[in-house]
């Protein structure tokens, strides 16, 4: 147990270091000139040489990579993630403001796609070859090959522009004081982006669960259960869920990275002010501190997801749980 904790802490620290270093390296070798990118074309053209040099110093464009990184790292270790130059606010504050939006979006998509995908996968697998299975399979292949942003645009065209059921973008109504924004308003704005993200997330989990279900249903223990008179539905309930839920949950926790990636695109399409959108802005604007902050935040999320999957697996699977105990006793 102690070893498990220690290994994971080491892994976590190495991951954080790696992610932040890669972010700084990428920003430094990026051809984007932060000064030019952030002050705007017209302002940059009318700017004097001296002013430009001043701004370049402000952005730290001339500071060597490793000096910048270690400055940032030293501050980060003491809890200061630095200033977002693009938003002119502390990185922690920018992330905190936007994380709420993003987490709401991702949580909805994560739960809906997981539950829907799992159900579709189980029944498609158990009734393989039937019309239902074919429809689910077709739907999944279609979605798996559909770009998220394109689907987002399609939903916008149909539900926002033509039907007018949902707002065109943003997370709150325009022209309303933030104190007057209701929960319903927020949900109304969340609906389409969440739907886009959920619908595309279904394909992965459904196809995976379908394959797993086929494996389980053709396994010796299911054959034996059948020979003892259990019906397909009973077998699914008693043996299927037990053996299928953990792979599905593991996959779902591991797919947080994909949902995060998808949310970047979806937030762009729907102008939804979340982390993904901030990450794009930070990347294009050469805002290394903010980008590193967001990268670390998302890496923590993904790492946490995988860790939970690992722990859950041990709790539910007696083979892993008992072996863990015995190896500790030795």
């Amino acid at each position, binding site marked *: 147990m102690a070893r498990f904790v220690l290994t994971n802490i080491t892994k976590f620290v190495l991951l954080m270091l790696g992610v932040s270093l890669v972010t700084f390296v990428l920003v430094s070798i990026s051809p984007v000139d932060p000064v030019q990118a952030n002050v705007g074309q017209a302002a940059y053209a009318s700017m004097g040489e001296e002013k430009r040099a001043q701004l370049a110093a402000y952005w730290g464009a001339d500071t060597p990579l490793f000096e910048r990184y270690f400055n940032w790292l030293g501050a980060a270790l003491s809890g200061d993630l630095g200033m977002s130059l693009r938003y002119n606010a502390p990185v922690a504050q920018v992330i905190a403001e936007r994380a709420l939006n993003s987490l709401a979006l991702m949580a909805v998509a994560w739960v809906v796609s997981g539950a829907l995908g799992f159900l579709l996968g189980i029944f498609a697998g158990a009734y393989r070859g039937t019309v239902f299975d074919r429809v689910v399979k077709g739907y999944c292949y279609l979605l798996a090959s559909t770009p998220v942003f394109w689907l987002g645009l399609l939903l916008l065209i149909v539900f926002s522009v033509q039907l007018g059921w949902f707002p065109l973008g943003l997370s709150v109504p325009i022209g309303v004081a933030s104190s007057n924004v209701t929960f319903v308003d927020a949900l109304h704005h969340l609906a389409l982006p969440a739907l886009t993200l959920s619908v595309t997330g279904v394909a992965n989990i459904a196809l995976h669960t379908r394959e797993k279900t086929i494996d389980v249903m053709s396994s*010796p223990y299911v054959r034996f259960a059948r*020979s003892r*008179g259990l019906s397909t539905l009973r077998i699914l309930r008693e043996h299927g869920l*037990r*053996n299928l839920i953990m792979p599905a949950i593991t996959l779902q926790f591991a797919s947080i990275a994909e949902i995060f990636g998808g949310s970047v695109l979806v937030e762009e399409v729907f102008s939804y002010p979340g982390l993904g959108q901030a990450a794009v802005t930070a990347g294009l604007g050469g805002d290394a501190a903010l980008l590193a902050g967001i990268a670390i935040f998302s890496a923590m999320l993904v790492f946490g997801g995988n860790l939970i999957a690992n722990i859950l697996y041990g709790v539910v699977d007696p*083979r892993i749980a008992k072996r863990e105990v015995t190896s500790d006793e030795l």
Partner: protein
Amino acid sequence: MTMARSKCEPHGNAQPGVKPTTESTQSMQDPQALHDQPRSRHGHAHAEPHGHAQHLHGEFHHHHSHAHTSKHPGFHHLLTVEGLNVAFRMYDPQAPFFRAKQREVEVIHDLSISVHEGEIVAIVGASGSGKTLLADSIMGLFEPNARVSGVIHFNGERVGADALRQLRGNGISLVPQSVRYLDPLMKIGRQVEGVGRSDRDQAASRLAKREQLFAHYGLGPEVADQYPFELSGGMARRVLLCCALMDEPKLIIADEPTPGLDLELAIKAMDDFRAFADEGGGVLLITHDIELALRVADRVAVFKDGTVVEETDVASFASPDSLNDPFSRELWYALRFEDMPQTQAPVEDRTEGATTAPAASLPSREEG
């Protein structure tokens, strides 16, 4: 090959079978008449009418000859399978990939076998020759792309696919090979008691029955709380047997129930099946191990190329002259030559035998 012989089952329900073959429907024209006068319809090779109860030892009827233990209480077999065919629709494996057409591959053809009450019948055949498919067919476990035809009678009733499904765990029980047939994530106790039977009173009585069976087979109460991966091979075998006995079957189909055991241990393990048969049950033992079959079974059915080529009293293996099929005789010689060096056994069945018992100890359970 057996069309002329008439049916032995007096209670021929006209219930549709698993796509009955033509020969069997012909013999089933008037089920009521069969029911009324069971004896007169037994037109065997000799004209004299007789019931099942009066078969002589070694007498040939119904594709098989009898052992001394074979009995027909109620004038019928416990299980009769006649003219069973199992075919699969699949893409022609020989044809080039993109031009392969679907064709039907017949895995079992015109197979007949019977099990009487109180006996162990062994089906002996090479590994991977489709013996397990036979077990599946008897239990009504068909793959979606399988086409199954034939006539099956259980306990005097003609059973179709639906009735076979009803009989699973309710008359016919399977004893599978290994621990892989248990759900790796479910505790042993729950699996033996059986899941999905919701009734509370029943759950209590099943628990009691399970505890009784565990006690009888030397499985400690702690085993109920263990998971399949914690079982030793011997424990797993007893657990699997308990699973079958929970449902109080009339017929047990044992599909290679003693894998990896040497002959003496395997014979010991078969004592439980012997006890079950002695109490009036029937056991269909599916195995690749001819020596095991000859030592524990009452009758042996030789399975080759998807059919039973000979179904006979185990005593017939005492001499090649009492075996009718050339393949059975080949088997007999293969067994005899076992302890002679340099002699290649001409039979593939021996490849997985894993038994080295001297052939001198061969057939014939003691008579009487």
